[in-house]
């Protein structure tokens, strides 16, 4: 990669957003990029595509996906779609443009305000969650339309923390064909982004879904990424039980809340349920890999 630094020199930089040590979440980032890039390349070409597109929000997750995509497919094969709403922070579009310029990828601006406002003109009572979900799904429909128009595959930008906590809109930002960062916790997203020299402005700002003014992920979730990522790693990757988590010093309230968020959002990680009648049922015993192609 053009701007990659010597990995040993950059180890000190590979910390979380606020410089916390990653501890067990520390990876050898060059090796990780190799694996992510190999998987991304094969899954996209296997599906018959050579181009990809993604929604570029100005935040760190989509900045990282855009960077990995440009590295894997070449800047000329990546389309970044900027889809602000009238209440989106102007900074978000600026940061997205900064990424577009940094990577030299193509971009397209699609203001989603008219269609979102047209719908809610008939539903003025809608709260901000409904409005936020609608925006996320509006963006999804644009990405999938452009996927068809440009013969480019939609890349996902959800990280492992979001996926496990269900901090996403089902069929909205969670929808994609291939997601290269879905097995990286948010702390690892920060570290890998630093390693790949994504601009500091983007890496250092507080993560936000930017659905309303002043929103931040950590306020909304009521937990810090650095801590919840360590907890998720213990629970999910190491299968540590409650007693072990308590011994390791995690607060019982945090453990319970994370447990309940994970279980409560399992539906977002699965396909819709089908009620079985026949001999072979699509979601149950009709088992083929996604890469099944004749």
């Amino acid at each position, binding site marked *: 990669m053009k701007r990659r630094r010597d990995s040993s020199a950059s180890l000190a930089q590979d910390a979380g957003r606020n410089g916390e040590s990653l501890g*067990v979440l*520390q*990876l*050898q980032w*060059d*090796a*990780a990029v*190799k*694996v992510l890039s*190999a*998987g991304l390349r*094969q*899954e996209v070409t*296997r599906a018959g595509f050579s181009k990809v597109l993604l929604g570029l929000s100005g935040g760190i997750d989509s900045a990282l996906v855009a960077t990995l995509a440009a590295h894997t497919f070449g800047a000329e094969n990546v389309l970044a779609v900027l889809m602000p709403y009238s209440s989106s922070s102007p900074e978000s579009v600026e940061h997205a443009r900064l990424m577009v310029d940094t990577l030299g990828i193509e971009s397209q601006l699609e203001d989603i305000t008219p269609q979102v406002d047209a719908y809610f003109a008939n539903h003025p009572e809608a709260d901000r969650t409904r409005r936020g979900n609608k925006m996320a799904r509006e963006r999804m429909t644009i990405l999938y339309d452009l996927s068809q128009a440009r013969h480019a595959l939609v890349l996902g930008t959800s990280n492992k923390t979001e996926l496990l906590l269900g901090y996403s809109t089902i069929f909205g930002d969670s929808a994609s064909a*291939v997601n290269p960062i879905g097995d990286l916790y948010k702390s690892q997203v920060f570290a890998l982004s630093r390693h790949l020299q994504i601009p500091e402005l983007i890496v250092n700002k507080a993560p936000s879904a930017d659905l309303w003014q002043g929103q931040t992920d950590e306020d909304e979730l009521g937990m810090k990424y650095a801590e919840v990522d360590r907890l998720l790693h213990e629970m999910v990757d190491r299968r540590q039980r409650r007693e072990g988590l308590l011994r390791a010093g995690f607060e019982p309230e945090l453990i319970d809340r994370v447990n309940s968020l994970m279980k409560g959002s399992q539906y977002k990680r699965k396909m819709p349920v089908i009620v079985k009648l026949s001999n072979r049922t699509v979601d149950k015993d*009709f*088992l*083929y*890999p*996604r*890469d*099944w*192609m*004749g």
Partner: protein
Amino acid sequence: MDLRIGLAQCKLKLGDLEANVAIHEEWIRRARASGVDFLVFPELSLTGYLLQDMVGDLAMGIDDPHLKNLARSAKDMSLCVGGIEESEGHAQYIASFYLEQGKVKHVHRKVYLASYGVFDEARFVGAGSSVVAARTRHGRIGFSICEDSWHPSLVTTLLLDGAQLVVVQTASPVRDLREGEMPQNARTWVDTLRTYARLYGCYIAFCNRVGSEDGLVFWGRSVLLGPDGEEVAVGPLYEEELVVGEVDFERVRQARLSNPILRDEKIELTCRELGRIAASRSLAASLDEAASEQGDGE
């Protein structure tokens, strides 16, 4: 030098037998140009790995024309290819086919099916039930498919049966990448195989594929290990490569003279004790034992 081995560290096309046969033909040509006597392909090289319900569509009998044609194309070169074998009774197995001089000379059915983590093999195929070192024109060769090799008992059996070379076909994907360049499971593989080679004084030809299926990235790094555990030839991580190395069976003799572990293996003792342990592991036996221990205490 006795035998020039090639390890085809290749990408494959999942579920596409014809495309994979064409890939085999291409690698056979490459191997011939490198003077290879025996070319080894990865696990399930004719079908791809993540087959699930495709197993039935891709299964082949040992008389399948694809196998015969490959054996013929290879001419004097011996081959080890991977596929789904279907028995006369219509059971399917993950198999290593050893092809020699135009014929299928030996078949090993995978005994230990991986059914944990990302693997779910036992749902789709049956488990093999024999472990025999093949008699080949290159001498006795043992075949072990991926998970088989994580069971020292299977590898030991092949070696006690006379194998001087163990061929390991794998489709091993990245699991648990941490600080190093190699994922944790790859490190375990390297350590385990090196231990076998060194302990038993044998060659190990490990062929792992590259490419990816459904987000599982196969890590490659195929290796030919010599009787001192040294890497005679080794491939790169993640990239395709024909890895070629020489096997010198005289070195097996030398290693076993200085380290006669296999000579001293007490097979009858092991059989007797394992028989006792197997019997004691039945539920009835453990209930009897529990009852007698209670009786002793009273």
